[in-house]
Structures are given as C-alpha cells and as structure tokens.
C-alpha cells in the first residue's frame, strides 16, 4: 500500500518506526497482530503479522499498519479493532500517550477508547490490563525484507559520491567480528 501524494500522510511518509507492540498481564504475554483477514488479535509468539509500522502523522498522533498485511489498524465507534485496507482518518489515527512506567497507550481521539486486546479475565475487568503496550524492536530472522532494503539504498543524486565512499573516511577504528560476537 503506498501513500498517494494528495493524502494527508504524504509529508510524513518517512517518520516511520517498525516494531512490535508487546503487552502482558499476570496470565499472558502477547504481541498485537493484524491478520490478513482483517482480524486483530494477540499472539503469544512473534509472528510476521506482529511487525507493525508506526507512522507519526502529527505531534502525538500515530497511524499503525501491519507490515506483512499492509492493513491499517482501525477502531470502530465501539472500540472494536480491525485491520482495514483503506485509510480512514476518523478510525485509524490514534493519540500516542506514554505512561509513567514507559508503556504506551494508543487512544482514539474520536471516541476516547484505547487500543486493547481482549484479556482472558474479560469478565473481571474490561480491557484495562491489556491496553498498555511496550514498543519493542523487531529481531526476527526475516532475511528477505531486510536484504532488499540494504540493496537499494537511497542515493544522493546531487553528490559526486552518491554511495558515500568518502563518508567512511572519518571512521577511526576497524571493525572486527571477533570483538563483537557474544561472550
């Protein structure tokens, strides 16, 4: 899914973080995942559908998109989550609030409800425990996407050194894999 030039997202198309949204309570640890059928659920393992693209569109406002499925995370007026192909500003933009404990809460400015995963103890407390998320880095061994990104790096067409050979001149130390491999 690309962002058309006339969309409100266009100027912000580079403000992107790629990560997983982790949440937990006493009984479980989950990653938010957007499935290809548009359902949104919590996965106990890191699946490709858990990799999300967080795009800042305005100060404090974020759009969340599944990388594998290219679906936007959207919320209807009752707070129910779904993955949706078309972007709707009303349903798919969330206010990103960072809580004191470092967790993040995503709240819809439209209806004031938070992004939350259904908890197992649904009857006891409604959706309070699983609306705090910790954004974590994606560390999965997913070679293909990364390799392509590596290969076609953005080149500076105005430079006489578009591949940045000269930029390496300032690196003082020589990299040795031995020193960086795990203890």
């Amino acid at each position, binding site marked *: 899914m690309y962002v058309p030039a006339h969309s409100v997202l266009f100027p912000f198309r580079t403000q992107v973080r790629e990560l997983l949204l982790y949440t937990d309570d006493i009984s479980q640890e989950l990653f938010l995942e957007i499935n290809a059928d548009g359902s949104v659920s919590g996965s106990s393992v890191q699946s490709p559908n858990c990799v999300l693209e967080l795009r800042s569109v305005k100060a404090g406002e974020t759009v969340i998109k599944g990388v594998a499925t290219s679906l936007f995370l959207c919320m209807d007026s009752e707070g129910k989550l779904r993955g949706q192909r078309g972007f709707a500003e009303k349903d798919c933009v969330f206010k990103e609030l960072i809580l004191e404990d470092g967790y993040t809460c995503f709240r819809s400015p439209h209806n004031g409800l938070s992004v939350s995963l259904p908890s197992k103890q649904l009857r006891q407390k409604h959706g309070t425990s699983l609306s705090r998320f910790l954004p974590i880095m994606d560390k999965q061994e997913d*070679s293909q996407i990364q390799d392509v990104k590596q290969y076609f790096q953005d080149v500076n067409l105005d430079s006489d050194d*578009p591949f940045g*050979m000269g930029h390496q001149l300032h690196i003082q130390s020589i990299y040795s*894999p*031995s020193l960086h491999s795990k*203890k």
Partner: protein
Amino acid sequence: MAVWSVSLSVVLCLSLWRTAVCGSHHLWLQTLNDTHVHSQFPRGFLWGVGSSAFPTEGSWDADGKGESVWDRFTHSSRTSVDTADVASDSYVLWDEDVEALQYLGVKFYAFSLSWPRIFPDGNATSEPNWAGVAHYRRLIRRLKDVDVEPVVTLHHWDLPQTLQERFGGWLNPNLVDIFADYARFCFQTFGGDVRYWLTIHNPFLLAVQGYGTGAHAPGLRGERQHHFIAAHNIIRAHAKAWHIYDKHFRCHQRGRVSITLGSHWVEPLHGQTTSANLDLCQKSMEAVMGWFAEPIHGSGDYPASLKASNRGVLPEFSPQEKMWIRGSADFFSLAFESETLNAAKGLASFGQMVTLELRKVLLWVQQEYRDPDVLLPDSGWFSDQSVGVEDTVAIYMLKRFIKQLLHAVSTDGVKVLGYSAWSLLDGFEWNHGYGRRRGLFYIDFTRPKRHRIPKTSAHFYRQIVNDNAFPDNHTQHMIHAHFPCDFQFGVSDSTLQVHLSPFSPQFTDPHVYRWNYSGDGSLRPVAGMVLHTRGSQCTDFLFIQRHLLLLEAVGASHYRFALDWSELVPSGDVSSADVEKLRFYRCVLSEVRRRGIQAVVMLYNPSYRSPSLGLPVPLHANSGWRNHSTVEAFVKYATLCFREFGALVPVWITINEPNRLSEMYGGNAEDRRTVERYALLAHAKAWHVYRQHFRQRHGANVSLALHANWVEPANPFLESHKVAARRFLWFELGRFLDPLIGRGDPDARDSREAGSSPIGFTDDEKAELRASLDFIALNHFTTHLVSPQKSQERGSSLMTDHTWTSSPMGQPVVPWGVRRMLSWMKSRYGNSLPVIITASGVDDRAAVDDQLRQSYIRSYLQEALKAKHETECNKTSLQEQHCVDVEDSSKDSHDLQFGLFTSAAHHSRPKASVNLYRDIISRRGFPSTSDPRPPCQRADISTSCRFCATMTESKPLLFFSVCVSFIIIFIIIICVLRKRKKRITTQQLHH
C-alpha cells in the same frame, strides 16, 4: 477453418494483451544473477569516449560562428558568471583532444557538431560557414587516420539563437524542416566518413530543462504543455532526418542513424513490490524514456500511461505520422547520467526511488523494444571541481557502471555495441558551469593555456579499454585440486561460556525415594537412607554433548574457542580460581579430544560484549591493560591454564587480536601503545613459561592471533595510496609481528613512512619478545581500500569498493584478499613459520539457506588453495586452518548472524553452509570429477599393520568368527569327550 483462424487470432490477441499489460513488471520482482562467469567483454566491443560541442569548443564567435541559445543564455544569466566563451578551447586544441583519445586507446569518439558554427543563422538552405565545416572535416579526417570511429551528434542543445528568436525554438513545428535541412547537409558533407549518426542528444533534458524548468537554454519556464510541444517537434525532426538518411544516403554511405535518449531507473519504495508500486515504477519509466522511445522504437505513439495522465496537453500524432515515426532508428542510443536522473526524480519518480541501476535500464530496453542493438554514448557520473586529478571516487563510479554493463552484456545478453565514458574533457557543464567535472582529462580553467592532464580515472579507463575486461582479474577461474594433507579445517567459536546447568542430577542425588504410585504419584525421600553416589562425570554437563554434536556435524578436525578469564579467575588472583568452572572446561576439552578433534584454545578474547572487556573485573577496574599488573596477572592465569589443561590442548593462542585491543581503550596514541606493549609482553612471558615448564611434556604450539584484513590502495594509480596501504599493513601487522619473529630492525623505514613510531620496547624486552612465536595466527575476514589521511595515527583511512559483494552488515566479500594476505606474509616473513587462519567468516541473515556464507566459504577456500599452490611451488610448508564461527547458544537473538548454526533459541538448526563446508572437508578441497584420487590416508595404519586395519574395519566379522570358532572348539571337545566315554564304556564292556 474459419473457427480455427478466429480462435487463433483470439489467442494471439490474448498473448499480445498480456505482454502489453504485464510490461516489464517482473524486472522489479526478479533478483538478477550476480555471479558472472568471466570478466571479458565480447570481442569487438566498442569502447569510446564522448564530448559535446558547446561545453568544450569555446571560440564562441570565432571564424564566423553564429550565436547559440546557450551563448545567449550564459551571457545574460544573472545567477552565473561562468561562460563557455573559451571553455576547453577544443576548437583550437582539437589535435590535443585526438592525442588524449589515442592515450585512452578508445575505438570511437562521440562528439557533436555545433549547428551555429556551420550555419550561423541556422538556415541550411543558405551558404554555410566554410571555416566551421573545415574544422569538422579536419577533425573527422584525423580521427579516421588514427583509427578512431567518429560517432557524430547533429544537435546537442546549442540551437542557433536566430531560430529561437524567429520561431520560438523547438516550440515551432517549422523547426522540423529546418533541422531536416541541416541534417541533410551534414550527411552530405561528412557522411562519407561517418558510420554512426545521432540526430539529437537527450531530448528529455532539452525539452524539460529548456522549455519546462528553465534550467537550460533557452530558459523558458512557462505553460505546462510547452515541454510536450517541444518534445513533439523534436521527435518529428528526428524522424524526418532519419527518413532523409534512409532514402538518400544509406545505400552508399552505409551508416546507421539513431537518437540518444536519456533515462533514469526507479525501484519500488523501500523495496516493497506491491502492485501499486510496480505500476508507478512502470509509469515513471514510461514518462521519461518511454516518452521518446515508445514512438520511435515502439508503437509509434506515446505510452498509454503518459497520454492518460497528460490528457489535453500532450500533442497527438496523426496515424500517418505514427507509421512514419515508428522504427525511425537503426539502433538504441542510451544516455544514463546524473542530470537525467535528477530531472526524472523531480518530474516523474511518483514517490518511488531513483537508483543508478544501469543494468536494469538495459534490460528494460531489451524487453520493451524487442532486443535492439544498444550504444551508450553518454554514461557516467561527475566530480566536484576541487577533486582535481586524483579522482578516486570517480574511478569507482565508473567501475560500477562498467560492472553493470558487463552483467547486462554477458549475463543478460543485452546486445550492447559499445560504451562511452563521459566525457573526454572537463568542460562547461551546462547549468553547473565549471563546478562539476565530468572529464577523464583535467583542465585548469584559470590558466590561459588549457592543458589536458589525465586524471586517475583516465588511467583506469585506459586499462579497461586495453584489457577489454572488467578489472576483477582475481576470482574468475576455479581450480580443481586437493588441499595438501597438512591443511586443517576447523570451526571457531568466540568465548565459550561456562554452562554448569542444565545438569543431569541422576547420579549425584544420594536419596532413596518412595513412589506413591497408587495415590498422588509423588516421590518422597526416605528419611535416614543415604546411598553412595557415583563421582561427578563430564556427561553431567548436558551443554557439552549438545554443543559438540554441532562440531561433529561439520566434520572439522579443529575447534577453536576462548576460555572466559573473567569467569575462571573472577578476582584476578589465580589462588581463588573457580574449581567448578575449571572442571567444566576440562570436560569440554576431554570430550573434544575423545571425538578426535584438536582443540585450539584462546586464553584471552577481548570482547565488547563483556563490560570488563573479558578481563576479571578487579583488573579492569584497575585500568586493565594500561596497568602493568595485568601482565603479571595474565602470566599467572596462563600458567594455571597450561597446568590444568596442558595435556588436552595441542594449540594455544594467548591473546586474540591485540591490534584491536588497544582501540578498545581509546585514549591518545601513547596510551594505545602502552596497551599494545603490555599485551605483547604478556604474550611473550606466557610463551616463555610454556617453553620452560610445559613444552617438553605436552609439546603444544603457542602463538597470538592478529586481526589481519587485507588492504588495497583505493587509488592504484597514486603513489600516496600505495604508501598508505604499506603503512597500514605495517601498522596493523608488522609492528606486532616484527619484534615477535625477530626480524632484525626493519622498523626504521616503515615507521618513517607511517609517520608514527613503533611500539617501543627496551632492549631486554626485545630479547624477551624475539622468537616467541610458534606459528603465525591471523583472523582474516575481509579486504578494505585505504587512502592516505594525515590526521589518523596509522596515516590512512578505510573505504569500500561498492562493486564488491557485501554482506548485510557491510562486510565486503573479497576472496582474493586472503591470497594476497598470505603472499604478503610469505614475502615479509619467509617460510620459517606456518600460517594459520584462526578465524574467518561472514554475516548472513538467512536462517537456513545462507547463500552468501556458502559462496564466502567456497571462494575463500578456493583462494587459500591457490595461495597454497603458489607457495608450494617455492617449497614451503603452509599449514592452514579455516574457521567459521559457530554461533553461541545463549538466548539473545540479537546476534551477528555469523553462525553455521542458528542459535539455541532457534534449536541450533544447521544452515546450508554446514553441508557445503562438510563436503569440502570430506573431499579435502575441490577435486575435479575426473580425479577420483582418494583424499589423504593415514599412511601409518595402512602399511604398518594391514591385518590390524582389516580387523578393526570388520569388527562384526571378527565377532562372528570368534563365535564360530568357539562353537567348533565346543563341538570338538564334546566329540572328544564322547569318544573317550565310548572308549571307556567299551573298555568296561570288554572287562
């Protein structure tokens, strides 16, 4: 019959429709094959160089030349003070240009005619300016004399100013006929000597920059449709010129005519090949190259996508015109350079990424326009004017283009006739003036006499032209041979962590349990009952078995790993060594030995992963290797290890990469030298301890391992770069190995070159260091380029050649580097000491099918084999060991991905390279299929005790035969007994 033909035509339509819709989409989806077989270009490939009239000729009003739109544009420009009034002075110094061509050795010269020099008012029906005509006649004549093919462009943007004023330039359809008259004159006048004609150069830039953005002359910046109208007339003018040639000149001049079209290339944004992105990429290509190529080389009309998005502003061709334009080119002439890329990025990138993939452009041309012959008269990048003659980066830009060209020609089969580097001379680079330089020859525009001085890129291009090959002379041929029997294959780990748990408790628990089987099924210890347990055994450490299984899977004969100093001696004082951890390592070593694998044990492996850099914490707190007490502590620790493990270890490495260790501490040059000095002293002292107390008993070899990447001068044509490479090797290796190997006092020259002093030992220390090395151990991973830089201590800085294959973490894969490193070692230190490569490898993100690592292992071993062969010719013994990291099995998945196996968290799965490496080991190299000679046999077994060998080989047979003989003996005994019994009974009977 009718039904048949209808259905056939339906099928035809369908297939046509499919190609039309799919276009070249798969170009963005397919991964191109990057492994080329040979670096040679086809025989007869045309190497050339290009230039253009306006930027180089100068003499703007000499000998009756008329004013061009560019003359007017530069003279009236308010922003720029530069003009091309003199420029490179080629109108006067044209014979020096021909000398420059001869220096390069090129086969063709692509230059352009100045229209206003031949017809000052542009009108080709009037009398020409004979001085101008004579100039070009002379030039062409001379080119023919020196065997350089002229490739002549009729119009490279310098339109006569009169035509601009009278008609409004290319906006006026009258220009079509006026240009055609001019073309006819040129064909007639010069055509006898010209095989390749190009009508107009890069009409995309001419239309967009001249009539759209206004960056180029005539600098019109107006209506949106203007550049479409200009382009429309240019296409028709070209077609008319081509038809004139085709009709009147082709039969006796036998030349070929085309038009040079500029192009860019786009890749889907972030590599996301969604169908929306692919459509936009296709659209982007059609809006730049397709705009001109589709009418001329394709259907005769503008691309559908261009028409759809510019409805109402894009002029239309009449059906007759389409027929007339279509096919009006005898080959495809392509320009691929920065200006077009930049303009295309601004005008038609549609949010996709503009890249420098010449190969893909050529593939596009091949697929879209029915595999035409292609000529590249204008291709290359630019340098800043400050770069001068030493244009190192330009060499690598040129190299990159040529590598892509090679792939297109030899791998993809694009029919490229020839390639021309742009340009011959520095000149007036249009809107960039003299700030940008594109020449292979440098000109100092501040001096009155415009001397042509070859840049280093000229030397480079000359070499390519001369060899007719891509300068990658090293890795091409594969040799088929065995590694000699003393060559050893290993696997290496970094620090092997102590894993006391998981631990199997089954033989260590002294309690007796009662099992409540019928009740709750629980086990309860019986009070007061304690049994004797078996003593602890190595099999209790579950980690060891599992870990060594991986080693066995590889089939290597050597295993290198490092002990964890900070774990073994946490306080730094050997009297308080951790007994349990010592036992763990002893278990590892004895299990390694039991499997017939030789251990290569490293005492100290500095690592950024450890907060104390791998040292015991108190030592680190006490400023670590900057403090002499660390030397003492190390020697004691080494003595402990020699004593504890000596019997199990055939090879010791004291310190890993002392040349990197000093960088870990930072500080100034003096501080770093202190660290280096202490590290070397610590090694030497440990070596002496081993020699005095352990050598006789255990006989192991002791050395230290240096980080030894190879370097090449970034610019091979500059002495300063060669010096930088020598300096680097001295700084990285010579400084450490010279005192250890005891190489006289050769430092003087090297250190003077390096501009920095050697490590600086006292005479006593020198004596202690001398000859304290049993072999040379190198950790070789990759190769760098170096260029001189005064500000750095080692006097050089590193670069990477981006034509080299590179790993995801940016480590270049340069197999021939290892060969050069080994031959450098040999030339500097002779053959007295064996060389062991104790670590080598590459990161590869693939979880299972690690293609990059496979090719790394294969090619690096190939080169090691070549090195071995080279040195063997000189009767040397080179013992070598190739090691690849086995990934450690702690749970952290954020890892370097250097492993042959995935991490334990991913179940230690073997990657594909394990099989490859195992295969190479079992065949001992790369034997040819016709050479079934079995790899090394243990000669001692086969000759000394053939019977034992056969017996050991057939243990079941032995067992069987023993059984059989037992039975036979038994039967005999029974028989004998029976007989005796019988005899006794008969005797009794007789009695």
